[in-house]
């Protein structure tokens, strides 16, 4: 089911959680709502489910206004961050809940319920846990049961609030791959909330980056990653070295560091920020125009990648550097040496007035 939220605003007291947000969620896609905590992503998800009512704006399901529909009539599957499994019911009864509470007319028979719940438990590969209590399950298992419970009512849209937030790193990765496979098998429109950019890039067909109650960028993971629309998105999607200052004669003066890259000519006389990813620096041993001199403070090797922390010679600014470990032999950065860094790829953002 396609969903559209239109000019939604929601405030909690003085806090503006959603500020005139308009977004489209196309049918059948797996969409990530990505942003730091407090950016309004969970509020947006809950608004779609009907668990929060917006101060203004509309939620459209398949082009129809669903704003006045009660949460119980919206036919959404919602997986809560802490799963919210019914603690006094067995796993089986948890999954069966949505079917058992239906009015008599539409309630399936006991045999049908058993079959359906059994199928769902098989789908999440936890059929053998049917008689357990939720408290006897691990976090990853609870997560999958919560998903099975949400799927039992055959929702038109699946909403997941920080689905992997409470899990440890290894389980998180496994479940992520599993959820992607599941979505390929059952192409229900799915929206999930996350603050983990890697998770969003890895899993989603489309990413909506949010900040302070508004949408910063919408696009495919490739688009968002390769071409961030704002410096916030750039920052949020990975570590970044930032140089801010005034452009003069096609060169940037950033607190003592002089930076000259070709595109700066377009920003003559403006205040800009040049952002460089740690792995987008060229590393040199000799000084030259446009290179930033920096002293290596610390070198840490992470398998194929080595990270280094440096401080700029000119003003002591902290810089982050990443390069393939295999390269090390060539340049050999070690603590104390001075390197000359040349921005290879970068992104320039004109400062908002």
């Amino acid at each position: 089911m396609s969903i559209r939220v239109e000019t939604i605003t929601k405030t909690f007291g003085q806090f503006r959680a959603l500020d005139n947000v308009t977004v489209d969620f196309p049918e059948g896609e797996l969409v990530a709502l990505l942003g730091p905590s407090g950016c309004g992503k969970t509020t947006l998800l809950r608004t779609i489910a009907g668990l929060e009512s917006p101060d203004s704006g509309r939620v459209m399901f398949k082009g129809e206004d669903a704003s006045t529909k009660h949460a119980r009539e919206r036919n959404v599957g919602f997986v809560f961050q802490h799963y919210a499994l019914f603690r006094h019911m067995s796993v089986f009864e948890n999954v069966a809940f949505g079917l058992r509470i239906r009015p008599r007319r539409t309630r399936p028979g006991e045999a049908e319920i058993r079959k359906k719940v059994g199928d769902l438990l098989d789908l999440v590969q936890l059929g053998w846990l049917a008689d357990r209590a939720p408290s006897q399950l691990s976090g990853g298992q609870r997560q999958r049961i919560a998903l099975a419970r949400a799927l039992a009512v055959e929702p038109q849209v699946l909403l997941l609030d920080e689905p992997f937030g409470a899990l440890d790193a290894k389980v998180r990765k496994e479940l992520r791959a599993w959820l992607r496979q599941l979505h390929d098998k059952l192409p229900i429109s799915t929206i999930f909330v996350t603050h983990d950019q890697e998770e969003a890039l890895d899993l989603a067909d489309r990413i909506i980056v949010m900040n302070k109650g508004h949408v910063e960028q919408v696009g495919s993971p490739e688009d968002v990653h390769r071409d961030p629309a704002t410096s916030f998105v750039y920052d949020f999607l990975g570590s970044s070295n930032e140089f801010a200052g005034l452009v003069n004669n096609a060169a940037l003066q950033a607190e003592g560091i002089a930076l000259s890259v070709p595109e700066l000519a377009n920003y003559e006389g403006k205040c800009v920020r040049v952002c460089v990813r740690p792995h987008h620096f060229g590393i040199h041993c000799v000084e030259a125009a446009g290179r930033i001199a920096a002293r290596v403070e610390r070198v840490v090797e992470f398998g194929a990648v080595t990270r280094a922390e440096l401080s700029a010679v000119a003003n002591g600014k902290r810089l982050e550097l990443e390069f393939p470990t295999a390269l090390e032999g060539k340049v050999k950065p070690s603590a104390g040496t001075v390197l000359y860094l040349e921005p290879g790829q970068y992104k320039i953002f004109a400062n908002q007035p």
Partner: protein
Amino acid sequence: MRETANAQRGRTRHERNDATRDAPVVKWIVLGLGLAFFLVFLLLPLLAVFVEAFRRGFSVYIAALAEPDAQSAIRLTLTAAAFAVPLNVVFGIAAAWLISKFEFTGKTVLVTLIDLPFSVSPVVAGLIYVLVFGAQGWFGGWLKDHDIKIIFAVPGIVLATVFVTFPFVARELIPLMQAQGRDEEEAALVLGASGLQTFLRVTLPNIFWGLLYGVILCNARAMGEFGAVSVVSGHIRGQTNTMPLHIEILYNEYQFAAAFAVASLLALLALVTLLIKTVAERRQDARDREPQFNHVEPAVTSSS
């Protein structure tokens, strides 16, 4: 290392550890003080009640309970409890629901008000009703005109009992429901459950043991209440005497065996209450202490 297994039985982990162990003398002094207090102030009086009740023999005991005034007192006590407990359950759940699931201004005032019956002396609680409903009270004239008797009659006793027992269920449920949060109710809601279905299938089972615990305490207090009931009762034998009031009258008339016989009924009730309470508490604990999947107590290793 021969002593290990046997000596370790009944000791906590921190006692087995030299680095955290206190001197045994400390343990025995603390234990001794606790036990002595328990024996002198709790167990001895309880025993005394039963010993005194049966001092003059079993037949006197039965006769004291079978006496019409005693029967009437027992009936009245049960009546008061039969009103107080269900009302308490309804008010308690409603108040706890309101406080734990909603945000509104004046919430702290409400929480404080719920505790009022605990902080006010029962005598004052009784006097409030006399002032409001008594012959000289605010509604005294109106009530008299309509021939309704509240003070010195059964309704007054029920009202006073409801007042003093009001906090029990609410007090028990508020922290429980606050700890459980709203997630499960919201989950039921999006799965399509109606408000009533959510309450019956999700909320109520989750608070069941806590509710039972509150009901038991409420019932015990309802049957045992003396002060407030004494003020509004008027002590009319066979009509407005509850068990505690009846016991006092018997005692003042030097009918010790009869007084203790009725008292033993109340004491018995207290014991049963404690028993059910312990079970309820254990069930609630077992539920709240969600055993973690990966949490395994370190095994006690014993070498011989």
